[in-house]
């Protein structure tokens, strides 16, 4: 546990030192969403109809942007190898790095999301559910993304390859995240969607650190 906290603190510290990087992810998120009214037209009804989906897709793309560097810098300067030799199990180390990634990118996205929902004229009833769904969904995105980030270590073309690998795996989270918000706006319960998002998170928590650690191990072998 102390090892987990140590890595988490280190990564958070590194992230705050280069604070601009994380701001850029949020800025990308905002700009990507703002593009949609230009693309589909400013009509409030259409924007309200697609708001939840657009915000989710943009959040998914934004959280993927910074994933490439999740292990890359540590891989290049050799600290990943040191980490694997340290008494901390690699799975725990991966989990700590994922937690740091989520705190520095996932959480700011969730803070920015209501603002974008206002811009897209989303029905106000959906706001709390949007935040709850993002809170449940984005950690899963970070966890799944960590597997992809571990697998591309040392490959020739990192970023685009990462997108190709993990975007298909993001589809279930996207479906249920959007469906939860749409259900509440439509006047239905969204318990089933939230339970399923929670189940995805539990499953990802159990499996992804393990798979990502296997990926890191074969990369530094």
């Amino acid at each position, binding site marked *: 546990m102390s090892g987990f906290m140590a890595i988490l603190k280190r990564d958070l510290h590194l992230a705050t030192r280069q604070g601009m990087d994380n701001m850029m992810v949020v800025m990308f998120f905002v700009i990507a969403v703002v593009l949609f009214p230009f693309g589909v037209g400013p009509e409030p009804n259409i924007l309200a109809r697609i708001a939840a989906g657009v915000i989710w897709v943009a959040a998914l793309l934004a959280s993927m942007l910074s994933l490439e560097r999740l292990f890359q810098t540590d891989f290049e300067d050799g600290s990943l190898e040191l980490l694997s030799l340290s008494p901390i199990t690699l799975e725990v180390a991966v989990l700590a790095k994922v937690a740091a990634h989520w705190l520095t990118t996932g959480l700011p996205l969730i803070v920015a999301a209501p603002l974008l929902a206002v811009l897209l004229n989303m029905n106000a009833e959906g706001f709390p559910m949007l935040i709850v769904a993002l809170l449940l969904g984005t950690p899963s995105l970070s966890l799944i993304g960590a597997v992809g980030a571990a697998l*591309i270590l*040392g490959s020739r073309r990192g970023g685009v390859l990462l997108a*190709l690998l993990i975007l*298909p795996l993001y589809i279930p989270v996207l*479906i249920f995240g959007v*469906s939860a918000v749409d259900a509440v706006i439509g006047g239905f319960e969204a318990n089933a969607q939230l339970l399923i998002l929670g189940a*995805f998170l539990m499953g990802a928590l159990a499996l992804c650190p393990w798979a990502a650690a296997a990926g890191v191990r*074969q990369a530094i072998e």
Partner: protein
Amino acid sequence: MLHRFANPTRFLRIASVVQPWMAWATVLLGGAGLYLGLFNSPADYQQGNSVRIMYVHVPAAWMAMFCYSSMAIAAAVGLIWKHPLADVAAKATAPIGACFTFLALFTGSLWGKPMWGTWWVWDARLTSMLVLLFLYLGYIALVNAFDDPTRGTRASSILVLVGFINVPIIKFSVDWWNTLHQPASVIKMGGPSIDASMLWPLLLMAVAFTTYYLWVLLIRIRTEIIANKIRIARLKQVHG
């Protein structure tokens, strides 16, 4: 049992014996299936002659899933027992599986046009197939993205296992999403009961597609083994 085939030299010898059998089986069974499918089977009372697309569409869809499962099994064997041949088999299967997935999508679209009135609907099965195609393409991209080929197979073996766990989840999600958004009037492809006169050509084509897969798989595995030998020979030239 497994280790008897693991030796690449012995495998090459067995492969060169089995390969012509697979070729003949594919030609004969495929020919018989085509004859029954195109000439000697009835038109569906609802879908008319368009039902004949089923004889290529359904086997292609089956093979798309079969190939992905085979890849997952081969990847697991390769990761757990460090089997060189299993890694090669997974890598050799991927392009074949991607072809079958593309064919299932393409023929599904051609079947959909007369049945649904459009080339593409976000039907649960078609959508899942599309995601499966992306999984295949991701695998192929990853396996070729490393300068060291063993790194590529290791990383992509992990990917294919992660994908394999995800396939049922994706299927479930797409089904859920589909029932929310799809109007219920869509005609389902391939009803639950199927007449024997249609089952025979379908089964023949399915077996022919399987033997075709094994045929091309053997060719591609042999290619990979020889590519490995070339790599070793080149290294020897440089260092020797």
